[in-house]
């Protein structure tokens, strides 16, 4: 089979399922009404909202009134963090998060610091995992919110969110727990009720849905202050005419992605094993960053080629239609070393030479063989060029 391209940058974004594209186009074409309108077209729109909400609620095992739609992961994270902190300011001014969160979480906390809150940033162990004990130790009687991501977008480390939640709530039952599940939703089984999660952020375009739409789970009884003001949509938490084509596309993508969740995970795991072992066997001087191979998520891993530059590797692979990423693409407009890799204590050479690979269940064995052979030859050529002794 001829390989057209190998897209292994699925943590940046995924390719929408064809079914999603046609469903969205159908909604735009036929059911274009504003859900708030009182006529037939309006009720069609409302029905899309209701059924989509139910799909997401079912996947999470929650009530449908606990699910609201947003414009994506960044908005979900901002609304959760800023909304909880500002609403609960009287209860205390201390917040806890980690040093390896996505920038939409870190920047929201930076903003809260400017507003007078105190933030503790937990530093992960060398494998990119937070020690739950450290999270508990950071808690004070003034702590109102703890926000910890599930799967890290740059290195694929998995945080023990259930354990952390249990230990946090044992010490301070009033503390609110937010989880950024943008990289894990539809891949890992998530059950906010059983896992003690109060708020959960998700983003459609990370699971083969459209860009510009996401979800925030908010447990019943948790109140937050909105970021926007308007016509009372989404319980007043997220006003603005609903993006019905996007929401319909997201619900369908979530349905498809979770239907064969186990098989998908197993497949990605074996693709990951194949790629890692091929690269590290050929180039033993390269290093896997963050979690051990068997500890990390099956779809995200990060390898450093110390002495080389990530961006140069990236462009060299682009020549062969292999698409990867240096750190995270979300802050690519600022040319600075990844804060995640720095938090792991990597030196400058290792952070500059880092490549993130992120898989989808749509990738194939053949693609991995092709990618591995091209990656290995490109790295060998560049290493020779830079006179790296291997």
């Amino acid at each position, binding site marked *: 089979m001829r390989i057209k391209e190998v897209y292994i940058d699925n943590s940046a974004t995924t390719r929408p399922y064809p079914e999603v594209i046609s469903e969205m186009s159908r909604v735009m074409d036929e059911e274009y009404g504003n859900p708030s309108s009182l006529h037939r077209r309006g009720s069609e729109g409302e029905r899309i909202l209701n059924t989509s909400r139910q799909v997401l609620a079912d996947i999470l095992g929650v009530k449908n009134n606990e699910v609201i739609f947003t414009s994506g992961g960044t908005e979900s994270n901002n609304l959760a963090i800023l909304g909880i902190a500002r609403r609960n300011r009287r209860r205390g001014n201390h917040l806890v998060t980690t040093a390896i969160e996505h920038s939409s979480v870190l920047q929201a906390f930076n903003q809260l610091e400017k507003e007078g809150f105190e933030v503790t940033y937990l530093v992960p162990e060398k494998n990119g995992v937070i020690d739950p004990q450290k999270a508990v130790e950071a808690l004070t009687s003034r702590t109102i919110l703890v926000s910890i991501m599930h799967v890290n977008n740059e290195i694929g480390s998995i945080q023990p969110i259930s354990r952390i939640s249990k230990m946090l709530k044992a010490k301070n039952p009033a503390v609110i727990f937010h989880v950024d599940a943008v990289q894990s939703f539809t891949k890992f089984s998530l059950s906010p009720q059983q896992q003690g999660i109060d708020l959960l952020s998700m983003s459609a375009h990370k699971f083969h849905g459209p860009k510009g739409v996401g979800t925030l789970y908010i447990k019943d009884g948790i109140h937050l202050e909105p970021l926007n003001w308007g016509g009372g949509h989404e319980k007043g938490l997220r006003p603005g005419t609903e993006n019905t084509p996007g929401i319909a596309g997201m619900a369908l993508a979530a349905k498809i992605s979770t239907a064969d969740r186990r098989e998908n995970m197993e497949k990605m795991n074996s693709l990951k094993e194949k790629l890692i072992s091929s690269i590290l066997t050929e180039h033993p001087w390269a290093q896997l960053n963050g979690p051990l191979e068997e500890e990390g998520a099956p779809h995200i891993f990060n390898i450093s080629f110390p002495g080389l530059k990530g*961006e*140069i590797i990236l462009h060299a692979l*682009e020549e062969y239609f292999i698409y990867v990423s240096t750190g995270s693409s979300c802050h690519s407009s600022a040319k600075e070393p990844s804060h995640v890799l720095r938090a792991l204590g990597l030196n400058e050479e290792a952070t500059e030479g880092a490549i993130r690979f992120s898989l989808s269940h749509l990738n194939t064995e053949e693609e991995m063989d092709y990618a591995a052979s091209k990656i290995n030859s490109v790295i060998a050529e560049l290493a020779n*060029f830079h006179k790296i002794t291997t």
Partner: protein
Amino acid sequence: MNRLLLIRYGEIALKGGNRPFFEKRLLRNIQDSLWGLRPFEVTFRRGRYYVKISDDNLFAAQQRLQKVFGVVSISPVFEAELNIEDIYSEAYKLLEANYTPGMSFKVNTRRSNKNFPNTSPEVNSNTGAYLLDRGLDLKVDVHNPNIVINIDIREKGAYLYSQTIPGPGGMPVGVTGKGLLLLSGGIDSPVAGWMASKRGIEMEALHFHSPPFTGEGAINKVMDLCKVLSAYSGNITLHLAPFTEIQKQIRQNCPEPMLITLMRRIMFRVAERLALQRKISALFTGESLGQVASQTLENLVAINDVTSIPILRPLISFDKEEIINISRKINAFDISIRPFEDCCTLFVPRHPVTRPTIEELQKAEEKIPVEELVKDCLENIETRTIKSRE
């Protein structure tokens, strides 16, 4: 409704026998700058240009003319017939367009057409009286008025204006010849190009890139910079020269501390040859003395050793801060700071200690086929035209 813009030029009025040449070129540049704003009409009378253009396009035209080198100032004018009644009514329109209650004004007449029956003081006082009589909340203040109504009585008509907008000055692009700008994508070289254009140089640009290691992003960045420059200098011919093979050869065969200097010696050789082919008489660079290790006096000498074409360096004694200020002013800065690897970063010399003697450099170059590399590079140049207006 049609409006009129009055354009004044400065320095070229001083030129003796060449004056018509300068004036014609400026006329053409003014016309070119208004591309897409049809219908318009540009006329030249007695040392001034007049642009007749529709009301809707007046502001756009004004903004574009502020980027045409040679233009010293621009005034939107109202045109009156050569009779006092028409002057009154146009003066009233001008006043009305700028009216705020309680404002003060003054009328300032220049009568270069001595056939006009009323003297300047008469026109001043009669027009003032007429305006005061219109039932507006107005007063005359000859010392410190809010608005000065200038009335310029000339051969073909009277021109009334209150606003004088500064132009960029300089010389019309095209009157001083053609230059080849070495354009890196950084902050300095676009500013150097702008300064060359300011003195009437018509520009071609040369950019070295290292495919596949420098990606499309780097090329798009250079093209965007050309686009910004082209608003001032007209269409730009951009030459993209592949540099990868040269870098490989230097890297593999020459001593590390000399890499950057050797690379630059080859770049300037390519630039000189290209300039000759294109009938261009000088190179322009963004070098500023001592700014980086490769811009020392020794390094300039090392370049001179392999070139004989004049190399002009408009920024030679500018501080970084001064360069950044111009870069911001011409809207190049935000493009220049986009984070893409350029061809130089392929080398990543850890210690660019560069004080090689000319003899040492010449000796190092014996190890690589300089002539062949330069020829190959020239043959594989890709040329694109960046249009100022699309």
